[in-house]
């Protein structure tokens, strides 16, 4: 009998322990809700030039809005994919941050369809933001007549970075410009003969990035944009020709590409092991950190065949439905849109301001060329960075490209791309 009592008591004790710990968990989870002056900004900018940019932006925000308190909700890892998973579950459980980072354009589709972010067109009208941003950009931000985010910066994706010393060694003129991919391929052959890596590339997403610029070069801006709205046929012969060019280019790349990320591939050019690298202009920061001088140690030019076209991507901030602090979100978006905020952010991050009123005289020499192109070139949307197609479509494109990386089969690559387009273009 006594033993039974004892074990009963122990059982009760165990139960109550569980109950206590459960309560503790709940308290911790819901603390900080309700009315607050905190503005939680959710990003994946946790290190490097991205972190520096965010810090600079926060500085402007706190000086403009001393009443609000900035809370850094950055989630690191997986080039943003980890952050997106965390964000998705928070949005589903109606626990949104005050604002979150997303690539401007088609990447927002999922959030819009799920009714998770607010339309901002009225706010654009009211605050006069329509005058702050170029028209071409506003068109690309718009989905079904409504704008859903405020762009903080502009990056250019169709840029080739080259090491001048390696080019000279291979008997090439570093200042040469290549009118087409074919001319460029001839130059790549020379580099190969000189025993260097002609074109460095890294893991799957950088291959998608390369493919996108090849499509842009061979199809031209209009047909390239048509790939995303259904007016260009993915199964067409011109796409096949572009994919064959892509195959040729991949033949000039380093064999260990799967083990590398973009920094490593760019580093190969910086270190003089490779001649060329196709990467977005965030690579500029990598050259700057290695204390290389633009135009002497390295050159940058649009991917051959894409001169006069600006393959753009932009980061932007949103207003989630049910934001815990609507005024705070608005204040943050105000700072993001402002010339002051964009100057501080972009100078640190190495991108260029989306706001045309921002003062850019003291930006670096590469950025000056990008600013000029941004003002004059035709603008198209990057797919590898979420501007042209939804996340889901990009996932299918990436897996087709990854498969091509291992089997080198152009027909299968095109079939994969066609299937991806059929699956997603309708929606």
């Amino acid at each position, binding site marked *: 009998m006594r033993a*039974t009592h004892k*074990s*009963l008591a*122990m*059982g*009760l004790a*165990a*139960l109550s322990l*569980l109950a206590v710990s459960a309560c503790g968990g709940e308290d911790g989870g819901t603390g900080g809700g309700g009315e607050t002056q905190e503005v939680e900004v959710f990003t994946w900018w946790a290190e490097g030039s991205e972190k520096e940019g965010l810090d600079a932006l926060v500085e402007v925000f706190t000086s403009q809005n001393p009443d609000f308190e900035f809370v850094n909700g950055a989630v690191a890892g*997986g080039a943003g*994919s980890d952050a*997106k*998973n965390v964000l*998705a579950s928070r*949005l*589903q459980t109606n626990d949104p941050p005050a604002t979150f980072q997303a690539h401007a354009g088609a990447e927002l589709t*999922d*959030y819009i*369809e*799920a*009714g*998770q972010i607010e339309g901002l067109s009225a706010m654009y009208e009211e605050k006069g933001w329509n005058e702050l941003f170029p028209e071409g950009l506003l068109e690309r931000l718009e989905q079904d007549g409504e704008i859903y985010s405020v762009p903080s910066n502009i990056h250019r994706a169709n840029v080739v970075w080259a090491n001048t010393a390696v080019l000279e060694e291979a008997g090439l003129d570093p200042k040469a410009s290549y009118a087409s991919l074919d001319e460029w391929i001839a130059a790549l052959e020379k580099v190969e003969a000189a025993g260097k*890596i002609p074109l460095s590339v890294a*893991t*799957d*997403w950088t291959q998608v990035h390369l493919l996108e610029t090849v499509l842009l070069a061979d199809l031209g801006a209009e047909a390239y944009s048509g790939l995303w709205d259904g007016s260009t046929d993915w199964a067409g012969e011109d796409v096949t020709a572009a994919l064959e060019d892509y195959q040729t280019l991949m033949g000039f790349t*380093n*064999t*260990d590409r*799967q*083990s590398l990320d973009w920094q490593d591939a760019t580093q190969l050019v910086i270190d003089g*092991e490779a001649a060329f690298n196709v990467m977005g202009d965030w690579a500029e920061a990598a050259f700057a950190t290695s204390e290389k001088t633009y135009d002497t140690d390295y050159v940058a030019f649009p991917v051959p065949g894409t001169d006069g076209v600006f393959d753009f991507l932009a980061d932007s901030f949103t207003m989630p439905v049910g934001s815990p602090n609507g005024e705070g979100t608005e204040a943050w978006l105000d700072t993001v849109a402002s010339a002051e905020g964009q100057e501080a952010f972009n100078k640190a991050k190495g991108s260029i301001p989306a706001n045309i009123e921002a003062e850019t005289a003291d930006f670096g020499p590469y950025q000056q060329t990008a600013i000029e192109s941004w003002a004059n070139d035709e603008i198209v949307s990057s797919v590898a960075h979420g501007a042209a197609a939804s*996340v*889901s479509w990009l*996932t299918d494109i*990436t*897996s087709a490209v*990854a*498969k091509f*990386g*291992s*089997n080198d089969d152009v027909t299968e690559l095109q079939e994969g791309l066609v299937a991806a387009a059929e699956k997603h273009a309708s929606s």
Partner: protein
Amino acid sequence: MSSTVPASATTPDAPHTPAKSRKSPGRRPSRSWAAPLLLISPTLLVLGVFVYGLIAANLNTSFQDRHTRAESQGYVWFENYAALFSDDTFMYSLRNLLLYTGAFLLGTLVLGFLWAWLLEKGVRGESLFRAVYLFPMAVSFIASGVVWRWLLNNAEGDRSSGLNRLFGDLGLTWLQNPWWTHERWGIVAIAVPAIWQLSGYVMALFLAGFRGIPEELREAGRMDGCNEWQLYRHVLFPQLSPVALSAIIIIGHMSLKVFDLIMAIAGQTNYTTQVPATQMWVEFTRGDYAKSAAIGTVLLVIVAVLIVPYLVATYRQERRR
């Protein structure tokens, strides 16, 4: 019937136990299990919600038309599974999983047995070797994956590093290979670090098995004129088979769930190392919840096919005792 008789005969107090319980009042059994039930109820509750409840929720999701982050579009039942099994990439990842598991099992069992056998033979410094072989198990797959990512770098020639560099320096250039980026056999390269990490564990299992075989059995075998091979074949191996089975189950179910090692070495998008678990992650990341839930269910079924017969057999064995 015949099997139960010797079983009860071997336990000397078996006849006493029923006699005792007959003496005690009839109410007592019901009272004595109330307390244990209360004790295990927290576990039951937590398991019920967080394991079985979530399995049910996962199954429920896999039956729905829910391929974006938006709300579900209703039930499609087995359509997601049909789509999955007609998807080339999924079949490729299943094939990869099979190859990986085969290589992992074979590698750990052969190496683990060999090491255990050598130690059992009485190698000097046994405790040192035991520790050396067991240590890798203490490292997480993610941590060792980061190192193996470098060791298994697929660059050949001048730019090679890791193992390919070693082969190059030793003049064994014909051994240089693309490792995990090979389309057909790449996945087997992922098994190399896994084998390195868990062979020591299998060795420990086999060593315990060897030590558990009474010396008298060997003596009896030798008395009956066994040579060394016959001794192993007819006396030791049968005694070791339960150990081997445990090893297969433990390594096998770990292998089927492989995810962290691949994420650390090759990343989630790499084609040649796709397995269901990485594919499930990719689908989840893009918001295709129904498809990733369906992959999860398939994975659960595959593991269950391996584990459940083992659990049933163990349960039966224990009841017989």
